[in-house]
């Protein structure tokens, strides 16, 4: 959560949003547990092996996947590799600067990565070509085009949508026929912010800036939890955490319906 920049405006904005929360309202008229409009367009880039363009309210990002043969990690010689990277390019927000990724970008990428990896939605053992020598490496690159808040949820939707449409380009590498990437589940990360004692889903950019803390929960189709990250300084109680888990599960199962349409 950013601090220090435009302090006076931030204070005014904070007061305004806080007064709304007291009335049970949000600036854009949504309910606390309501997402902004989601659109997912897969196969957006034909040079990628899988791709998805996601909009979540004003937030817009593109996920492109490249699959290449490479060396496995020494501790998992029979498993493929997934590498998630996120670029917060200066094009997407006046707050972003060029250069190596900052801690915020690294955190987003690692949270999205864990959500997908730990759900075991991709069967990495099916990505082994020659044990100990050659496996398929899946590069998930997320390009944020417009930061309208809640990049994590949009990135999580985009990543799994793109993976669902990914082809393993075996023919290009003389390794047999192209096959679809085996995807078993649709893990989704849902961000909840705490502000003014209330819990809210899908924070807009303004809400994100004033939130004292947020909790990201990745869940699977069966409701199980496959990743979690608290970010921000304000503490949470066990009861609050459990409430957020419930909200994330409900929201994720709603969003998952979108994927049936893809």
């Amino acid at each position, binding site marked *: 959560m950013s*601090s*220090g920049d435009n302090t006076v405006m931030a204070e005014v904005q904070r007061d305004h949003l806080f007064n709304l929360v007291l009335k049970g309202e949000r600036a854009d008229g949504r309910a606390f547990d309501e997402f902004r409009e989601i659109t997912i367009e897969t196969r957006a880039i034909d040079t990628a092996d899988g791709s998805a363009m996601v909009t979540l309210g004003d937030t817009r990002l593109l996920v492109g996947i490249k699959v290449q043969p490479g060396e496995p990690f*020494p*501790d998992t010689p029979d498993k493929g590799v997934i590498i998630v990277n996120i670029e917060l390019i200066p094009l997407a927000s006046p707050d972003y600067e060029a250069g190596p*990724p900052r*801690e915020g970008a*690294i*955190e987003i*990428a*690692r949270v999205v990565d*864990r959500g997908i*990896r*730990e*759900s*075991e939605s991709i069967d990495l053992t099916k990505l082994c070509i020659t044990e100990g020598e050659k496996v398929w490496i899946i590069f998930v690159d997320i390009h944020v085009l417009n930061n309208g808040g809640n990049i994590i949820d949009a990135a999580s939707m985009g990543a799994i949508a793109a993976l669902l449409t990914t082809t393993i380009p075996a023919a290009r590498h003389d390794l047999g026929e192209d096959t679809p990437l085996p995807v078993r589940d649709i893990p989704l990360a849902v961000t909840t912010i705490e502000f003014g004692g209330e819990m809210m889903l899908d924070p807009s950019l303004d809400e994100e800036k004033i939130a004292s803390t947020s*909790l990201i929960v990745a869940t*699977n189709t069966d*409701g*199980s*939890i*496959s*990743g*979690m*990250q*608290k*970010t*921000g*300084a*304000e*503490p*949470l*109680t*066990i009861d609050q*955490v*459990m409430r957020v*888990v*419930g909200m994330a*599960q409900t929201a994720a199962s709603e969003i998952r319906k979108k994927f049936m349409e893809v």
Partner: protein
Amino acid sequence: MSEKPEHFIIDGKRLDGRSRDELRPIKIELSPLDRADGSCYLEWGRNKVMAAVYGPRELHPRHRQNMTGAVVQCRYNMASFSVDERIRPGPSRRSVEISKVIRQAFEHVVFTKFFPKTAIDIYIEVLRADAGTRTAGINAASLALADAGIPMRGLVSACAVGKVDGEIVLDLMKEEDNFGEADVPIAMTADNRITLLQMDGRMTTEEFYTALELAKTGCTTVYELQRQALIEKYGDEYRAEGGSDE
């Protein structure tokens, strides 16, 4: 790396003989470093971590200064020789993320408002790693902050809970962390307010709730050890000033 064991729990005992709700042994040494304003060396099972705190001191570059309070900074670093395969020195994506969440675990408890324009720097060096280095680092850093005399709402205590053989266990050791089903590092204040929470792995909602409750007992045990360490070191001084142990 070692092979995955067939079972993690045999006859109610874990690989190192502990029960499900037992922490590895913790050893604390307060203020081992004399250049730092506060420091703490902590051993937790086979983990060895050193934490040092500098500050409040002037923050450079000045444009990063905050007029309304101190800026808390944290650097978590693993020594290149702290694990089997040498780690390339310098920040990695993992260490950058861990530094961030540790910093945030303390931002709430440190009374930053007393020290505008300053930095409070927390340095954590993992000298020998065996699962749970971030929680070990937090426990050491918490004591180093207290040792530096930084005003705080209270200590932060941390431990991990996880799932192995389908069971929820406290304080994962290396084998359990590498091959287990879930790992949940947690830090909380003495009144059980959570300041750090991460999870990777897979759990049901019920398992997760059980894990949180188990973490609560783990953190309470750690808190008692931290408190004892402070009393041993500063108890005489404190009582001489008319303070009581409560």
